[in-house]
């Protein structure tokens, strides 16, 4: 049974290494600051006890004030999982660091989030529209689209 790791436990571990990165730690998820995403993700992947080598999915939700990007990781060896969230308060030009260098599975998913919601990912090698055509006006999955 995949154990869903509690956010508060990981938050204590992270708070020692990356002070100020964790904004909120709940029982099922962990909310991080946008800038510290890459460093924390690398720590989660390389620490022997945590070993999160499998990225389940990346998705993004449009709450009217902010965009929230959700990541879920699983460790195939230890069989535990973790949910990470990052918020983006900029409506015009939201940007976040890309995790493609750590997990290549993020490649097509980040392109899709850019296409449908407009969130750009810095460091992505090929950030272009993927399911809609160039010249499509707007980002459909935003709540204020048409």
């Amino acid at each position, binding site marked *: *049974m*995949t154990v869903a790791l509690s956010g508060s436990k990981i938050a204590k571990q992270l708070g020692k290494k990356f002070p100020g990165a964790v904004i909120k730690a709940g029982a099922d998820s962990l909310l991080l600051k946008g800038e510290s995403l890459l460093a924390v993700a690398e720590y989660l992947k390389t620490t022997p006890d945590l070993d999160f*080598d*499998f*990225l*389940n*999915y990346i*998705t993004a*939700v*449009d709450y009217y004030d902010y965009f929230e990007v*959700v990541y*879920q990781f699983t460790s*195939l060896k230890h*069989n535990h999982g973790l*949910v990470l969230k990052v918020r983006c308060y900029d409506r015009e030009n939201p940007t976040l660091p890309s995790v493609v260098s750590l*997990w*290549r*599975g993020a*490649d*097509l*998913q980040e392109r*899709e989030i850019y296409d*449908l919601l407009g969130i750009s990912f810095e460091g992505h090698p090929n950030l272009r*529209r*993927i*399911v*809609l*055509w160039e010249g499509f006006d707007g980002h*459909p*999955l935003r709540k204020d689209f048409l």
Partner: protein
Amino acid sequence: MTTKEVTIQTEPFVVNIGPAHPSTHGVFRMRTTLDGEVIVNMEPIFGYLHRGIEKLAEERTYGGCIPLTDRLDYLASMSNNMAYCLAVEKLAGIPVPLRAEYIRVIMAELQRIASHLIAVGAFLNDCGAFMTPIVYMIREREKILDLFDMVCGQRLTYNYMRVGGVSQDLPAEFIPALRKFLKEMPGWINEYDRLLKQNEILLARAKGVGILPRELAINISASGPVLRASGVEWDLRRADPYSIYDRFEFDIPTGSAGDCYDRYRVRVEEMRQSLRILEQALKGLPEGEVRSEVPHLIRPPVGEAYGHIEAPRGELGFYLVSDGSIAPYRFHVRAPTLINLTALNDMMKGWKVADLILIFGSIDICLAEVDR
């Protein structure tokens, strides 16, 4: 007399293997850079079937989204329904009666066999055995589709499962028909093995072709037969059991080399394991009701949930966010085939155009799920 070595100056050129093509499984476009016949670079372009299902689901009720999920991976509709119903039940905390769980498992495993039949048949079609394997496999699939027709009246997009159970009980003639199918099917799979397992042409074309190394497979979040053929023993029915899968005994077939032949073998072995699960489920099927008491318009509490299952093509998950109203606030599909596509370029570099079709067929994608 001296011999002069003559070299021909070659230049690579870009060929578009376009959306309407008989060998791409659907509307998929590949911009390949070829040097003679050898592939140098391949860029996949899709989105030709993007119907905006994620946006359409935000204007439908929770029960009304089930027909939309049918049309995602249309070759495995029962699995899509099951994953979505699991996600909603997790979000709203709705229990499922035991008979409904057994029926769901029976439908999901029958669907897995039907989907793998098409996957294997289309793969052999791409190999060059023009129509014979796929016509044989469609003959077996018709028997499964007759069983589904008996239960819910549809052959391809069933809309059978509901939040809290299934929509109607099994008719009286279903169980004898299923028993008859279970008696005959192992014989058919053995016949295919006898014809194909040591077939020289299949071995020459598929063994060692399109290798996906183990580390890369984990890094790109591949799942399903693609991951298991690369040597990783990770099956959600064993690692994170959902529904009642922890009561059944079955093996998880894995490959070792990660080439096309291993992916084909993993799918055939999975069909055998599904037959095993079906026998056990049929033996333990209890009496009872098939759907728990659920209001017509479900209003889950504010929150989010992620429900995932082992669909025939990989890990299919639904991420739902609810804001307390009758429609989902956000409906996201974790599409296994989109993520399995990530390493296609690496798998194809250095092979020829004929192998391109084969490698693409072996990862078994369904465009409706890639594009959603």
